[in-house]
Protein backbone atom coordinates (compact mmCIF):
# COMPACT_ATOMS: atom_id res chain seq x y z
CA UNK A 1 0.00 0.00 0.00
CA UNK A 2 1.39 3.44 -0.88
CA UNK A 3 1.87 6.39 1.45
CA UNK A 4 -1.23 8.20 0.19
CA UNK A 5 -3.41 5.28 1.18
CA UNK A 6 -1.84 5.11 4.63
CA UNK A 7 -2.29 8.84 5.05
CA UNK A 8 -5.97 8.44 4.22
CA UNK A 9 -6.12 5.73 6.86
CA UNK A 10 -4.53 8.24 9.25
CA UNK A 11 -7.53 10.53 8.74
CA UNK A 12 -10.02 7.71 9.19
CA UNK A 13 -8.18 6.56 12.30
CA UNK A 14 -8.46 10.01 13.85
CA UNK A 15 -12.22 9.89 13.37
CA UNK A 16 -12.43 6.30 14.67
CA UNK A 17 -13.62 4.95 11.36
CA UNK A 18 -11.17 2.06 11.02
CA UNK A 19 -11.86 -1.58 11.71
CA UNK A 20 -9.48 -3.25 14.18
CA UNK A 21 -7.46 -5.06 11.50
CA UNK A 22 -7.06 -1.84 9.51
CA UNK A 23 -6.01 -0.04 12.67
CA UNK A 24 -3.35 -2.68 13.45
CA UNK A 25 -2.02 -2.54 9.89
CA UNK A 26 -1.75 1.23 10.11
CA UNK A 27 0.09 1.12 13.44
CA UNK A 28 2.61 -1.35 12.02
CA UNK A 29 3.21 0.97 9.09
CA UNK A 30 3.56 4.10 11.23
CA UNK A 31 6.29 2.42 13.27
CA UNK A 32 8.45 1.93 10.19
CA UNK A 33 7.47 5.00 8.08
CA UNK A 34 8.54 8.46 9.35
CA UNK A 35 6.69 10.23 6.52
CA UNK A 36 3.30 8.74 7.40
CA UNK A 37 3.98 9.12 11.11
CA UNK A 38 4.67 12.84 10.60
CA UNK A 39 1.41 13.08 8.64
CA UNK A 40 -0.41 11.38 11.50
CA UNK A 41 1.03 13.79 14.07
CA UNK A 42 0.14 16.83 11.97
CA UNK A 43 -3.41 15.61 11.59
CA UNK A 44 -3.77 15.09 15.33
CA UNK A 45 -2.68 18.71 15.89
CA UNK A 46 -5.06 19.95 13.22
CA UNK A 47 -7.95 18.05 14.75
CA UNK A 48 -7.13 19.47 18.17
CA UNK A 49 -7.00 23.01 16.76
CA UNK A 50 -10.33 22.56 15.00
CA UNK A 51 -11.97 21.13 18.09
CA UNK A 52 -10.54 23.77 20.41
CA UNK A 53 -11.60 26.69 18.24
CA UNK A 54 -14.78 25.15 16.94
CA UNK A 55 -17.55 26.90 15.11
CA UNK A 56 -20.29 28.89 16.76
CA UNK A 57 -22.88 26.91 18.75
CA UNK A 58 -26.46 28.20 18.96
CA UNK A 59 -27.37 29.56 22.39
CA UNK A 60 -30.60 28.92 24.28
CA UNK A 61 -31.94 32.36 23.34
CA UNK A 62 -31.47 31.72 19.63
CA UNK A 63 -33.10 28.29 19.91
CA UNK A 64 -36.01 29.77 21.81
CA UNK A 65 -36.43 32.51 19.23
CA UNK A 66 -36.30 29.99 16.37
CA UNK A 67 -39.00 27.92 18.10
CA UNK A 68 -41.26 30.92 18.51
CA UNK A 69 -40.85 31.96 14.89
CA UNK A 70 -41.55 28.40 13.78
CA UNK A 71 -44.80 28.35 15.75
CA UNK A 72 -45.94 31.54 14.09
CA UNK A 73 -44.98 30.29 10.63
CA UNK A 74 -46.81 26.99 11.16
CA UNK A 75 -49.91 28.74 12.46
CA UNK A 76 -50.01 30.99 9.40
CA UNK A 77 -49.41 28.07 7.09
CA UNK A 78 -52.10 26.03 8.82
CA UNK A 79 -54.70 28.78 8.41
CA UNK A 80 -53.73 29.47 4.80
CA UNK A 81 -54.00 25.79 3.88
CA UNK A 82 -57.32 25.46 5.62
CA UNK A 83 -58.83 28.34 3.65
CA UNK A 84 -57.38 27.02 0.37
CA UNK A 85 -58.89 23.60 1.00
CA UNK A 86 -62.27 25.11 1.78
CA UNK A 87 -62.24 27.24 -1.36
CA UNK A 88 -61.22 24.23 -3.46
CA UNK A 89 -63.98 22.09 -1.98
CA UNK A 90 -66.52 24.78 -2.67
CA UNK A 91 -65.27 25.17 -6.23
CA UNK A 92 -65.60 21.46 -6.92
CA UNK A 93 -69.12 21.52 -5.52
CA UNK A 94 -70.15 24.18 -8.03
CA UNK A 95 -68.38 22.40 -10.87
CA UNK A 96 -70.21 19.15 -10.20
CA UNK A 97 -73.62 20.73 -10.99
CA UNK A 98 -75.22 19.97 -7.68
CA UNK A 99 -78.32 21.89 -6.95
CA UNK A 100 -77.67 25.46 -6.00
CA UNK A 101 -79.36 25.01 -2.65
CA UNK A 102 -76.73 22.44 -1.68
CA UNK A 103 -74.02 24.89 -2.65
CA UNK A 104 -75.68 27.58 -0.56
CA UNK A 105 -75.83 25.29 2.43
CA UNK A 106 -72.21 24.32 1.89
CA UNK A 107 -71.24 27.96 1.73
CA UNK A 108 -72.89 28.64 5.08
CA UNK A 109 -71.19 25.62 6.61
CA UNK A 110 -67.83 26.58 5.16
CA UNK A 111 -68.30 30.11 6.42
CA UNK A 112 -69.00 28.88 9.91
CA UNK A 113 -66.06 26.49 9.98
CA UNK A 114 -63.66 28.91 8.31
CA UNK A 115 -64.79 31.62 10.73
CA UNK A 116 -63.98 29.40 13.62
CA UNK A 117 -60.47 28.78 12.30
CA UNK A 118 -59.76 32.27 11.06
CA UNK A 119 -60.87 33.97 14.24
CA UNK A 120 -59.54 31.34 16.54
CA UNK A 121 -56.38 31.91 18.55
CA UNK A 122 -52.97 32.02 16.93
CA UNK A 123 -51.95 29.00 18.91
CA UNK A 124 -50.72 26.20 16.72
CA UNK A 125 -50.15 23.70 19.47
CA UNK A 126 -53.61 22.80 20.73
CA UNK A 127 -54.47 25.88 22.73
CA UNK A 128 -57.81 26.40 21.08
CA UNK A 129 -59.23 29.71 22.16
CA UNK A 130 -61.89 31.24 19.97
CA UNK A 131 -64.49 33.90 20.15
CA UNK A 132 -67.94 32.47 20.61
CA UNK A 133 -70.21 34.73 18.60
CA UNK A 134 -73.83 35.07 19.51
CA UNK A 135 -76.24 34.29 16.71
CA UNK A 136 -78.16 37.54 16.98
CA UNK A 137 -79.95 39.10 14.05
CA UNK A 138 -77.30 39.81 11.45
CA UNK A 139 -78.69 43.15 10.28
CA UNK A 140 -78.68 45.83 12.93
CA UNK A 141 -77.62 49.45 13.15
CA UNK A 142 -73.99 50.10 12.20
CA UNK A 143 -73.71 46.81 10.32
CA UNK A 144 -71.40 47.27 7.39
CA UNK A 145 -72.29 45.20 4.32
CA UNK A 146 -69.50 44.27 1.92
CA UNK A 147 -68.66 41.67 -0.67
CA UNK A 148 -72.19 41.07 -1.99
CA UNK A 149 -72.38 38.06 -4.31
CA UNK A 150 -75.49 36.93 -6.18
CA UNK A 151 -76.07 33.22 -6.32
CA UNK A 152 -78.61 33.39 -9.16
CA UNK A 153 -79.43 36.28 -11.47
CA UNK A 154 -82.93 35.04 -12.22
CA UNK A 155 -85.40 35.65 -9.44
CA UNK A 156 -88.12 33.00 -9.70
CA UNK A 157 -91.36 33.78 -7.84
CA UNK A 158 -89.82 36.85 -6.21
CA UNK A 159 -87.21 34.87 -4.33
CA UNK A 160 -83.62 36.03 -4.53
CA UNK A 161 -80.44 34.51 -3.16
CA UNK A 162 -77.15 36.23 -2.45
CA UNK A 163 -74.40 36.31 0.10
CA UNK A 164 -72.51 39.15 1.80
CA UNK A 165 -70.15 39.88 4.68
CA UNK A 166 -71.77 41.66 7.60
CA UNK A 167 -69.32 43.44 9.88
CA UNK A 168 -70.75 45.07 12.97
CA UNK A 169 -68.92 47.12 15.65
CA UNK A 170 -69.77 45.80 19.10
CA UNK A 171 -69.68 47.71 22.36
CA UNK A 172 -69.86 45.55 25.44
CA UNK A 173 -70.28 46.56 29.05
CA UNK A 174 -70.24 43.77 31.55
CA UNK A 175 -68.75 42.32 34.68
CA UNK A 176 -65.19 41.05 34.60
CA UNK A 177 -66.33 37.91 36.40
CA UNK A 178 -68.65 37.06 33.50
CA UNK A 179 -67.14 34.11 31.55
CA UNK A 180 -68.35 35.62 28.25
CA UNK A 181 -66.40 38.81 28.93
CA UNK A 182 -63.38 36.78 29.96
CA UNK A 183 -63.66 34.81 26.76
CA UNK A 184 -63.49 37.94 24.62
CA UNK A 185 -60.59 39.28 26.66
CA UNK A 186 -58.69 36.04 26.30
CA UNK A 187 -59.16 36.28 22.54
CA UNK A 188 -57.70 39.81 22.65
CA UNK A 189 -54.91 38.62 24.94
CA UNK A 190 -53.74 36.15 22.31
CA UNK A 191 -54.68 37.87 19.08
CA UNK A 192 -54.48 41.59 19.74
CA UNK A 193 -52.11 43.05 17.19
CA UNK A 194 -51.26 45.93 19.51
CA UNK A 195 -49.13 45.30 22.62
CA UNK A 196 -51.28 47.73 24.64
CA UNK A 197 -54.44 45.78 23.80
CA UNK A 198 -52.85 42.52 24.89
CA UNK A 199 -51.55 44.07 28.13
CA UNK A 200 -54.89 45.67 28.93
CA UNK A 201 -56.72 42.42 28.35
CA UNK A 202 -54.42 40.59 30.76
CA UNK A 203 -54.67 43.33 33.38
CA UNK A 204 -58.46 43.38 33.14
CA UNK A 205 -58.67 39.64 33.65
CA UNK A 206 -56.22 39.96 36.51
CA UNK A 207 -58.57 42.41 38.19
CA UNK A 208 -61.15 39.65 38.46
CA UNK A 209 -62.02 39.24 42.10
CA UNK A 210 -64.32 36.25 42.08
CA UNK A 211 -61.53 33.73 41.68
CA UNK A 212 -63.54 32.01 38.96
CA UNK A 213 -61.56 32.20 35.77
CA UNK A 214 -62.64 30.44 32.61
CA UNK A 215 -60.62 27.48 31.28
CA UNK A 216 -60.17 29.26 27.96
CA UNK A 217 -58.52 32.16 29.79
CA UNK A 218 -56.07 29.74 31.34
CA UNK A 219 -55.20 28.24 27.93
CA UNK A 220 -54.81 31.71 26.45
CA UNK A 221 -52.58 32.75 29.32
CA UNK A 222 -50.28 29.74 28.86
CA UNK A 223 -50.17 30.45 25.16
CA UNK A 224 -49.14 34.07 25.80
CA UNK A 225 -46.49 33.09 28.36
CA UNK A 226 -44.90 30.72 25.87
CA UNK A 227 -45.35 32.57 22.62
CA UNK A 228 -45.87 36.30 22.92
CA UNK A 229 -42.93 38.14 21.40
CA UNK A 230 -43.20 41.02 23.87
CA UNK A 231 -41.52 40.31 27.24
CA UNK A 232 -43.79 42.81 29.03
CA UNK A 233 -46.88 40.92 27.88
CA UNK A 234 -45.33 37.59 28.85
CA UNK A 235 -44.49 39.00 32.30
CA UNK A 236 -48.05 40.18 32.89
CA UNK A 237 -49.40 36.81 31.79
CA UNK A 238 -47.02 35.13 34.24
CA UNK A 239 -48.39 37.33 37.02
CA UNK A 240 -51.90 36.29 36.02
CA UNK A 241 -50.88 32.66 36.32
CA UNK A 242 -50.42 33.08 40.08
CA UNK A 243 -54.21 33.22 40.31
CA UNK A 244 -54.52 29.65 39.15
CA UNK A 245 -53.98 26.68 41.41
CA UNK A 246 -50.63 25.02 40.78
CA UNK A 247 -50.90 21.82 38.77
CA UNK A 248 -48.87 19.77 36.29
CA UNK A 249 -49.65 22.02 33.32
CA UNK A 250 -48.62 25.13 35.20
CA UNK A 251 -45.46 23.39 36.36
CA UNK A 252 -44.64 22.51 32.73
CA UNK A 253 -45.25 26.10 31.67
CA UNK A 254 -42.94 27.41 34.38
CA UNK A 255 -40.27 24.90 33.43
CA UNK A 256 -40.67 25.95 29.79
CA UNK A 257 -40.10 29.58 30.75
CA UNK A 258 -37.11 28.63 32.89
CA UNK A 259 -35.62 26.68 30.00
CA UNK A 260 -36.31 28.86 27.02
CA UNK A 261 -37.29 32.42 27.84
CA UNK A 262 -34.50 34.81 26.96
CA UNK A 263 -35.76 37.41 29.43
CA UNK A 264 -33.94 37.03 32.76
CA UNK A 265 -36.77 38.45 34.86
CA UNK A 266 -39.15 35.86 33.38
CA UNK A 267 -36.78 33.04 34.29
CA UNK A 268 -36.31 34.45 37.81
CA UNK A 269 -40.06 34.74 38.34
CA UNK A 270 -40.47 31.23 37.04
CA UNK A 271 -37.87 29.65 39.36
CA UNK A 272 -39.34 31.59 42.28
CA UNK A 273 -42.82 30.24 41.56
CA UNK A 274 -41.44 26.72 41.19
CA UNK A 275 -39.65 27.04 44.54
CA UNK A 276 -42.82 28.32 46.17
CA UNK A 277 -44.64 25.27 44.85
CA UNK A 278 -41.90 23.03 46.21
CA UNK A 279 -42.21 24.63 49.64
CA UNK A 280 -45.94 23.97 49.52
CA UNK A 281 -45.18 20.28 49.08
CA UNK A 282 -45.35 19.84 45.31
CA UNK A 283 -42.64 17.52 44.09
CA UNK A 284 -40.60 17.28 40.91
CA UNK A 285 -40.12 14.13 38.88
CA UNK A 286 -36.83 12.96 37.34
CA UNK A 287 -37.57 14.69 34.04
CA UNK A 288 -38.07 18.00 35.88
CA UNK A 289 -34.89 17.53 37.87
CA UNK A 290 -32.95 16.91 34.68
CA UNK A 291 -34.21 20.25 33.39
CA UNK A 292 -32.95 21.91 36.57
CA UNK A 293 -29.58 20.18 36.27
CA UNK A 294 -29.26 21.28 32.65
CA UNK A 295 -30.25 24.79 33.65
CA UNK A 296 -27.59 24.88 36.33
CA UNK A 297 -24.99 24.24 33.66
CA UNK A 298 -26.36 26.64 31.06
CA UNK A 299 -27.85 29.70 32.72
CA UNK A 300 -25.39 32.54 33.23
CA UNK A 301 -27.48 34.31 35.83
CA UNK A 302 -26.06 33.72 39.32
CA UNK A 303 -29.38 34.20 41.09
CA UNK A 304 -31.04 31.59 38.90
CA UNK A 305 -28.10 29.24 39.44
CA UNK A 306 -28.41 29.72 43.20
CA UNK A 307 -32.17 29.10 43.17
CA UNK A 308 -31.84 26.04 40.94
CA UNK A 309 -29.18 24.64 43.28
CA UNK A 310 -31.58 25.16 46.17
CA UNK A 311 -34.31 23.22 44.38
CA UNK A 312 -31.94 20.35 43.70
CA UNK A 313 -30.58 20.44 47.27
CA UNK A 314 -34.10 20.42 48.70
CA UNK A 315 -34.94 17.41 46.57
CA UNK A 316 -31.79 15.56 47.68
Amino acid at each position, binding site marked *: MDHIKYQELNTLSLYEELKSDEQSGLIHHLVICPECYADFEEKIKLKETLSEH*GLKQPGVALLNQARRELRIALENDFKKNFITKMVDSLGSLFRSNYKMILAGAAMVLVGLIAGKYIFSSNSFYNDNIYLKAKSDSFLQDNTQITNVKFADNIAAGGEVEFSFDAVKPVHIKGNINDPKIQNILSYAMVNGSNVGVRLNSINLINSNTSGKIDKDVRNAMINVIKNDLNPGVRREALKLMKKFPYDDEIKKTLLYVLQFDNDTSMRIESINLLMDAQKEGHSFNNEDLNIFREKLKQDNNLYIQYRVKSVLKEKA
Partner: protein
Amino acid sequence: MAFDEKELIILAQKGDNAAFEQLVYLYDKKVLSLALKYIKDEDLAKDIYQEVFIRVYKGLKNFQFKSEFSTWLFRITTNVCLTFKTKKASRVFVSVNEENMDEEPVIELKDESYESSPDRIVIGTEITRRIENALDEFPPRQKIVFILKHFEGYKIKEIAVILDCQEGTVKKYLFEAIHKLRKKLKDLN
Protein backbone atom coordinates in the same frame (compact mmCIF):
# COMPACT_ATOMS: atom_id res chain seq x y z
CA MET B 1 -46.91 10.85 29.86
CA ALA B 2 -43.77 10.51 27.80
CA PHE B 3 -44.05 9.00 24.31
CA ASP B 4 -41.26 7.42 22.39
CA GLU B 5 -40.22 8.78 19.01
CA LYS B 6 -42.33 6.38 16.93
CA GLU B 7 -45.45 7.11 18.95
CA LEU B 8 -44.84 10.83 18.56
CA ILE B 9 -44.47 10.46 14.80
CA ILE B 10 -47.70 8.46 14.50
CA LEU B 11 -49.59 10.98 16.62
CA ALA B 12 -48.15 13.88 14.64
CA GLN B 13 -49.12 12.15 11.40
CA LYS B 14 -52.69 12.07 12.70
CA GLY B 15 -52.58 15.82 13.21
CA ASP B 16 -51.61 16.00 16.88
CA ASN B 17 -49.71 19.27 16.97
CA ALA B 18 -48.50 18.79 20.54
CA ALA B 19 -46.84 15.54 19.45
CA PHE B 20 -45.26 17.37 16.53
CA GLU B 21 -43.95 19.96 18.96
CA GLN B 22 -42.33 17.22 21.08
CA LEU B 23 -40.83 15.72 17.96
CA VAL B 24 -39.37 19.08 16.98
CA TYR B 25 -37.86 19.50 20.44
CA LEU B 26 -36.10 16.13 20.17
CA TYR B 27 -33.94 17.28 17.30
CA ASP B 28 -34.23 21.01 16.76
CA LYS B 29 -31.08 21.96 18.63
CA LYS B 30 -29.02 19.75 16.31
CA VAL B 31 -30.78 21.18 13.26
CA LEU B 32 -30.08 24.73 14.38
CA SER B 33 -26.50 23.85 15.25
CA LEU B 34 -25.84 22.41 11.80
CA ALA B 35 -27.54 25.37 10.11
CA LEU B 36 -25.54 27.91 12.12
CA LYS B 37 -22.24 26.19 11.48
CA TYR B 38 -23.02 26.02 7.80
CA ILE B 39 -24.38 29.51 7.24
CA LYS B 40 -22.63 31.38 10.13
CA ASP B 41 -25.42 33.93 10.43
CA GLU B 42 -27.97 33.57 13.24
CA ASP B 43 -30.89 35.04 11.29
CA LEU B 44 -30.22 32.88 8.27
CA ALA B 45 -29.77 29.85 10.51
CA LYS B 46 -33.24 30.51 11.94
CA ASP B 47 -34.60 30.74 8.41
CA ILE B 48 -33.10 27.35 7.61
CA TYR B 49 -34.45 25.89 10.85
CA GLN B 50 -37.93 27.15 10.02
CA GLU B 51 -37.82 25.91 6.43
CA VAL B 52 -36.68 22.46 7.62
CA PHE B 53 -39.48 22.00 10.12
CA ILE B 54 -42.15 23.34 7.79
CA ARG B 55 -41.02 20.76 5.23
CA VAL B 56 -41.06 18.09 7.94
CA TYR B 57 -44.55 19.14 8.99
CA LYS B 58 -45.83 18.98 5.43
CA GLY B 59 -44.03 15.77 4.56
CA LEU B 60 -44.60 13.85 7.77
CA LYS B 61 -47.80 12.21 6.49
CA ASN B 62 -45.73 10.53 3.79
CA PHE B 63 -43.03 9.33 6.17
CA GLN B 64 -43.28 5.52 6.18
CA PHE B 65 -40.54 4.53 8.64
CA LYS B 66 -38.37 3.19 5.82
CA SER B 67 -35.46 5.07 7.37
CA GLU B 68 -34.75 6.50 10.79
CA PHE B 69 -36.69 9.70 11.39
CA SER B 70 -33.43 11.47 12.28
CA THR B 71 -31.88 10.41 8.97
CA TRP B 72 -34.88 11.76 7.08
CA LEU B 73 -34.80 14.97 9.10
CA PHE B 74 -31.10 15.58 8.52
CA ARG B 75 -31.46 14.78 4.85
CA ILE B 76 -34.01 17.60 4.69
CA THR B 77 -31.70 19.81 6.75
CA THR B 78 -28.71 19.28 4.50
CA ASN B 79 -30.86 19.80 1.39
CA VAL B 80 -32.21 23.06 2.79
CA CYS B 81 -28.69 24.19 3.71
CA LEU B 82 -27.38 23.39 0.25
CA THR B 83 -30.26 25.02 -1.62
CA PHE B 84 -30.33 27.92 0.80
CA LYS B 85 -26.79 28.75 -0.17
CA THR B 86 -27.93 28.81 -3.79
CA LYS B 87 -30.85 31.08 -2.94
CA LYS B 88 -28.54 33.40 -1.05
CA ALA B 89 -26.09 33.50 -3.93
CA SER B 90 -28.92 34.29 -6.33
CA ARG B 91 -29.62 37.42 -4.31
CA VAL B 92 -26.21 38.84 -5.08
CA PHE B 93 -27.60 40.98 -7.88
CA VAL B 94 -30.79 42.98 -7.90
CA SER B 95 -32.91 41.62 -10.70
CA VAL B 96 -33.82 44.00 -13.47
CA ASN B 97 -36.48 43.76 -16.10
CA GLU B 98 -37.11 45.71 -19.26
CA GLU B 99 -39.28 48.25 -17.49
CA ASN B 100 -36.69 49.49 -15.06
CA MET B 101 -33.58 49.17 -17.17
CA ASP B 102 -33.27 52.96 -17.32
CA GLU B 103 -33.90 53.64 -13.68
CA GLU B 104 -31.32 52.33 -11.28
CA PRO B 105 -27.93 50.83 -11.99
CA VAL B 106 -27.41 47.21 -11.00
CA ILE B 107 -26.35 47.16 -7.38
CA GLU B 108 -24.11 44.48 -6.05
CA LEU B 109 -25.27 43.33 -2.64
CA LYS B 110 -22.81 41.65 -0.39
CA ASP B 111 -23.73 40.56 3.10
CA GLU B 112 -20.90 41.78 5.28
CA SER B 113 -22.93 42.09 8.46
CA TYR B 114 -21.55 38.92 9.96
CA GLU B 115 -17.96 39.80 9.41
CA SER B 116 -18.31 43.25 10.86
CA SER B 117 -20.83 42.65 13.65
CA PRO B 118 -19.59 43.48 17.16
CA ASP B 119 -20.81 40.10 18.42
CA ARG B 120 -18.62 38.38 15.93
CA ILE B 121 -15.59 40.43 16.95
CA VAL B 122 -16.15 39.73 20.62
CA ILE B 123 -16.97 36.04 20.35
CA GLY B 124 -14.79 34.90 17.57
CA THR B 125 -11.11 34.38 17.93
CA GLU B 126 -8.71 34.91 15.12
CA ILE B 127 -8.24 31.17 14.81
CA THR B 128 -11.97 30.53 14.61
CA ARG B 129 -12.26 33.17 11.93
CA ARG B 130 -9.52 31.52 9.92
CA ILE B 131 -11.18 28.13 10.28
CA GLU B 132 -14.47 29.62 9.12
CA ASN B 133 -12.83 31.32 6.17
CA ALA B 134 -11.12 28.11 5.19
CA LEU B 135 -14.43 26.22 5.35
CA ASP B 136 -16.12 28.93 3.30
CA GLU B 137 -13.87 28.11 0.41
CA PHE B 138 -15.08 24.51 0.33
CA PRO B 139 -17.73 23.46 -2.17
CA PRO B 140 -21.12 23.29 -0.34
CA ARG B 141 -21.38 19.49 -0.15
CA GLN B 142 -17.81 19.17 1.06
CA LYS B 143 -18.48 21.77 3.74
CA ILE B 144 -21.59 19.92 4.91
CA VAL B 145 -19.70 16.62 5.03
CA PHE B 146 -16.91 18.14 7.08
CA ILE B 147 -19.29 19.84 9.52
CA LEU B 148 -21.32 16.67 9.97
CA LYS B 149 -18.19 14.60 10.51
CA HIS B 150 -15.92 16.82 12.54
CA PHE B 151 -18.28 19.13 14.45
CA GLU B 152 -21.43 17.03 14.74
CA GLY B 153 -19.72 13.65 15.10
CA TYR B 154 -21.67 11.60 12.57
CA LYS B 155 -20.22 8.35 11.22
CA ILE B 156 -19.26 8.25 7.55
CA LYS B 157 -21.96 5.62 6.96
CA GLU B 158 -24.62 7.91 8.43
CA ILE B 159 -23.45 10.89 6.39
CA ALA B 160 -23.64 8.80 3.23
CA VAL B 161 -27.26 7.92 4.00
CA ILE B 162 -28.14 11.51 4.86
CA LEU B 163 -26.58 12.83 1.67
CA ASP B 164 -27.76 9.86 -0.38
CA CYS B 165 -24.32 9.06 -1.75
CA GLN B 166 -21.63 6.39 -1.49
CA GLU B 167 -19.43 6.10 1.59
CA GLY B 168 -16.45 6.47 -0.75
CA THR B 169 -17.71 9.88 -1.82
CA VAL B 170 -17.97 11.00 1.79
CA LYS B 171 -14.44 9.78 2.47
CA LYS B 172 -13.17 11.61 -0.61
CA TYR B 173 -14.76 14.86 0.59
CA LEU B 174 -13.28 14.33 4.04
CA PHE B 175 -9.75 13.63 2.79
CA GLU B 176 -9.82 16.69 0.54
CA ALA B 177 -11.20 18.84 3.35
CA ILE B 178 -8.42 17.79 5.73
CA HIS B 179 -5.83 18.37 3.02
CA LYS B 180 -7.12 21.90 2.32
CA LEU B 181 -7.39 22.77 6.01
CA ARG B 182 -3.84 21.63 6.64
CA LYS B 183 -2.61 23.93 3.93
CA LYS B 184 -4.71 26.88 5.08
CA LEU B 185 -3.92 26.50 8.77
CA LYS B 186 -0.38 25.25 8.45
CA ASP B 187 1.18 28.02 10.54
CA LEU B 188 -1.13 27.25 13.48
CA ASN B 189 0.14 23.73 14.01
